[in-house]
């Protein structure tokens, strides 16, 4: 259903303190986009790859497949940045089309290349977080950041409901398919419409049932829960600090 979610529960790094992982991912992410340095990007990309596949135990081919998700955007977006249409040819390449040129500059190509490297490295930071940390732990860490409790409570409920509704949606889809509801475009549109409608009705019903169940457990307007926290390990914190320092050094010195 949601592959990343499934993998996060199997990761060998799952039981490392969530705040540590969150801080690591976000700091590294910020350094990547601040520096826009290819060297930093390569280092981050490599280290995260090792952490995710080597330490986390996420299968390599799955990780590679996941990395292709943003490629479409990357390709289209970067093409738009590198390729210009202008009456004046630029210095890297130029094709003439009538009075116009499809053209690009050396600087543009270089900027594009840097952007690709940075963006891919940034994606690996996101993956480090999402493939090794389960969502409820991330929410637990957010709770400590003093985000508004209404927001956290909503996220807690939404995360759970996503799977409940997903299950319903996929059952309905299967039942539609087994009654030939995907035979042509028209039936597919009809099927999807019916799916959306009944999913909405069901979610209204479910929200009522769930509220009753929560009330019968003395719900009094605040969702309080205990999570099982993993302790912060000093060694790991030191490693994170050192690593970020190395990244800064690479950014400024190399």
């Amino acid at each position: 259903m949601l592959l990343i979610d499934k993998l996060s529960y199997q990761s060998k790094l799952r039981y490392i303190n969530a705040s540590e992982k969150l801080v690591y991912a976000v700091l590294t992410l910020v350094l990547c986009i601040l520096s826009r340095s290819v060297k930093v990007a390569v280092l981050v990309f490599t280290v995260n790859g090792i952490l995710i596949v080597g330490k986390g135990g996420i299968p390599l081919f799955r990780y590679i497949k996941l990395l292709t998700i943003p490629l479409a955007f990357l390709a289209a977006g970067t093409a738009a940045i590198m390729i210009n249409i202008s009456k004046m040819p630029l210095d890297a390449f130029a094709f003439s089309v009538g009075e116009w040129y499809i053209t690009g500059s050396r600087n543009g190509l270089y900027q594009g290349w840097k952007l690709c490297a940075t963006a891919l490295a940034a994606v690996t930071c996101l993956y480090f977080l999402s493939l090794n940390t389960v969502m409820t732990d991330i929410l637990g860490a957010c709770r400590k950041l003093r985000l508004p409790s209404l927001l956290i409570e909503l996220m807690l409920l939404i995360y759970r409901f996503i799977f409940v509704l997903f299950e319903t949606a996929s059952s309905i889809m299967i039942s539609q398919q087994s009654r030939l509801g995907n035979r042509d475009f028209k039936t597919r549109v009809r099927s999807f419409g019916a799916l959306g409608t009944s999913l909405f009705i069901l979610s209204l019903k479910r929200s009522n049932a769930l509220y009753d169940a929560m009330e019968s457990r003395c719900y009094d307007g605040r969702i309080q829960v205990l999570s099982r926290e993993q302790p912060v390990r000093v060694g790991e914190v030191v490693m994170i600090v050192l690593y970020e320092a190395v990244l800064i050094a690479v950014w400024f010195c190399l």
Partner: protein
Amino acid sequence: MPKKQKILLRAYIVFVAMFAIAPASNAMHIMEGYLPAGYCVAWGVVCLPFLIAGFISLRNKVKENRRNMTLIAMSGAFIFVISSLKIPSVTGSCSHMTGTGLGAILFGPASVSVLGIIVLIFQAVLLAHGGLTTLGANTFSMAIAGPLISFGIYKLCCSMKVNRRAGVFLAAFMGDVFTYCVTSIQLALAYPSEAGGVAASAVKFLGVFAPTQLPLAVIEGILTVVIMIGLETY
């Protein structure tokens, strides 16, 4: 131009075309790390007033009736699920709804801004659509600008007594188109063209994403109409 470069360029264009046509339906989520730091912060700040307004409106709804809590959460989950289901498309490629128009019509633009940012966070973490640093920009285009336009058009059509189906279609379609325009402008602002500046760059981004986004907007419009009609018959 040397021959080698030409071949390289051709190969690149084919590569781009392949991706632009095939699965690029989530292309309107700006990917992680794609915006310069300044823009990430700036778009976050732009979103803040809308988010605060939305948050206060949600909090009042929950205060008014606590039962709204699970209802709002279920709505958020509904938007997430509906926007991650494969939708029928003519080309046979795999696309998804944005749920912008449907959400705005069903839940109103204020709720959708907060639900939208939550959905975007989940999409980033669980699906790798969009990202954390680009959350501000994506929230503005998909959870604020798009729904506002959708809602506005929907209300306008209602008050002008436009045919309901047409009104819903227009609202969803324009919501999508507007989201796509805003995203293109966001990208253009960050990456102005060397020849022609922001305007030229915006045209380029609009052009690159048009082949996937325009048909998608039409389909999203149709599906929103079908769902809304279904809900009315209940």
